[in-house]
């Protein structure tokens, strides 16, 4: 066995004052478990001027690695990480380390504040002078406070950004998924166009058919792909001056400018339905939808309609088209409905050129788009 180098075997003597300075939270215990000397900070924490003469186990309670209360058991814990608390302050856990003094002079138990250091400093009324300059507890406290301040700043920033985002969203005029205008923008444009007496335009309300099935069976990503595709269709099928908007989950509106001809609007509607029915491939899955369309024409009114009236009439035409089956369009008409019949004023049709002026033309069932 190799012996210790001479310097490590050497015993050094430290005055009590030196111990206080180096370890202001130490306890020096004699072989019988009575405190010989206590560091000034520890005495302050125990609430006594002098702990000398007090039995160790009436001053502290050892908790880890085991709850022990005899000197014999304590001697076996030399060099281990100890968990303990002052009897006077059982709610503030401390940590400690134990070393045996030579010549039967007892043991030194050095103590430091545990993770509850912030509470301990407040609870024991400790000051900078109570800590050894080598003890990082004060730096921990500094960090603790500094972090609280910077966290508060970060929180404020996040809140402000969130408020700004919400405001930007509220003021946004674009639907991010399709890149079309949103309802806000469309409402504003309809009101603006109606306020201009020279502006004769047509309003097209579009409601997707079978969209819910896509969403339910293939997932929201597929649904989003379909919506984006409809956005693409609207952007490319309409003229530059026209305006298209996504005004709801699967509802779209198009404003067709300089349009006084129902036949022209019907052709546009038919073209849109056909383009929307083109299958979309999403991750290898074929998504098929269709669309129902309701149309209202500003110059079909004897007086200029209000935006609400115009939109409601286009909606009514849309519902009539929907009731008649998928993939149809219908025009709102100011012409009176024949009395005594349930026939709605809109006349949903499949195609502009093949539809008779009254009644619905049924589609072949095999033409119906299916999600699968």
């Amino acid at each position: 066995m190799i012996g210790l180098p001479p310097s490590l075997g050497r015993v050094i003597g430290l005055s009590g004052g030196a111990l206080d300075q180096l370890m202001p939270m130490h306890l020096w215990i004699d072989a019988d478990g009575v405190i010989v000397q206590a560091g000034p900070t520890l005495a302050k924490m125990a609430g006594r001027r002098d702990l000398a003469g007090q039995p160790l186990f009436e001053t502290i309670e050892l908790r880890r690695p085991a709850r022990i209360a005899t000197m014999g058991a304590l001697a076996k814990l030399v060099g281990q990480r100890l968990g303990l608390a002052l009897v006077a302050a059982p709610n503030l856990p401390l940590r400690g380390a134990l070393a045996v003094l030579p010549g039967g002079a007892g043991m030194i138990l050095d103590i430091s504040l545990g993770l509850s250091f912030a509470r301990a400093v407040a609870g024991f009324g400790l000051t900078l002078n109570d800590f050894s300059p080598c003890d990082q507890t004060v730096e921990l406290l500094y960090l603790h406070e500094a972090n609280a301040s910077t966290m508060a700043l970060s929180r404020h920033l996040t809140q402000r950004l969130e408020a700004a985002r919400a405001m930007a969203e509220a003021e946004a005029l674009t639907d991010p998924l399709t890149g079309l205008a949103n309802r806000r923008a469309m409402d504003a444009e309809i009101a603006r166009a109606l306020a201009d007496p020279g502006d004769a335009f047509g309003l097209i309300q579009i409601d997707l058919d079978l969209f819910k099935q896509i969403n339910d069976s293939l997932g929201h990503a597929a649904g989003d792909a379909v919506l984006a595709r409809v956005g693409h269709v609207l952007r490319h099928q309409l003229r530059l001056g026209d305006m298209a908007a996504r005004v709801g989950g699967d509802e779209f509106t198009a404003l067709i400018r300089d349009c006084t001809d129902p036949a022209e609007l019907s052709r546009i509607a038919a073209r849109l339905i056909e383009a929307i029915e083109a299958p979309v491939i999403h991750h290898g899955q074929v998504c098929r939808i269709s669309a129902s369309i309701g149309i209202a024409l500003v110059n079909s009114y004897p007086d200029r309609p209000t935006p609400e009236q115009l939109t409601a009439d286009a909606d009514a035409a849309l519902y009539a088209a929907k009731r008649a089956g998928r993939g149809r369009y219908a025009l709102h008409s100011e012409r009176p409905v024949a009395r005594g019949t349930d026939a709605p004023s809109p006349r949903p049709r499949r195609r502009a050129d093949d539809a008779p002026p009254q009644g619905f033309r049924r589609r072949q069932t095999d033409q119906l788009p299916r999600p699968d």
Partner: protein
Amino acid sequence: MHGMVNRALQGFLTATYGQHVWTQVRRQAGLPFDDFEAMLEYPDAMMPACVQSAAAVLHKQPNAVLEDLGTWLVTDPDLEPLRRLMRFSGTSFIDFLHALEDLGDRGRLVLPQLDLPQITLERAEGARFRVCARWVVPGIGPILMGCLRAMADDYGALALLSLGGIAQDGTECVDIQLLDAAFSEGRSFDLARAGA
């Protein structure tokens, strides 16, 4: 530059002279926004531009604006947390002066991107000190002087401070003559935060 520094300048101007002064300053400095955010980064040149504008708007020397900023950082009641963080550095003003050399590390401990000045302390004969600081932008000398004067007060020390000039490499110095380390009670510093 860390927005914390810019935000401090804005806070100082707003709290001391009012929102209208800040509005004038930021317009004159050509800031493309209304307010600095404490947790964002800004180009270094914005801070000196704001100081120049503030000096013009307030009809003061730029150094006087900066010195007042330094004092405000320690004395404003709303910035009590900052004063507390400073007081963690030591038990006496002399302790505090020595700990100034750790200021950069202390700042980085909390905000790794915070570019606090690099400070060295020289002790001359008697109770004379020279604090020298280098920073990313000019003006740290007067800021430090205002701040140190307030900290001397805070510790209850009586000290004379003066600007010690700017070296070739941009280092700015503050000369301190400590007349009485325990001149008054100073302000209290309790390690435990009130309400913590």
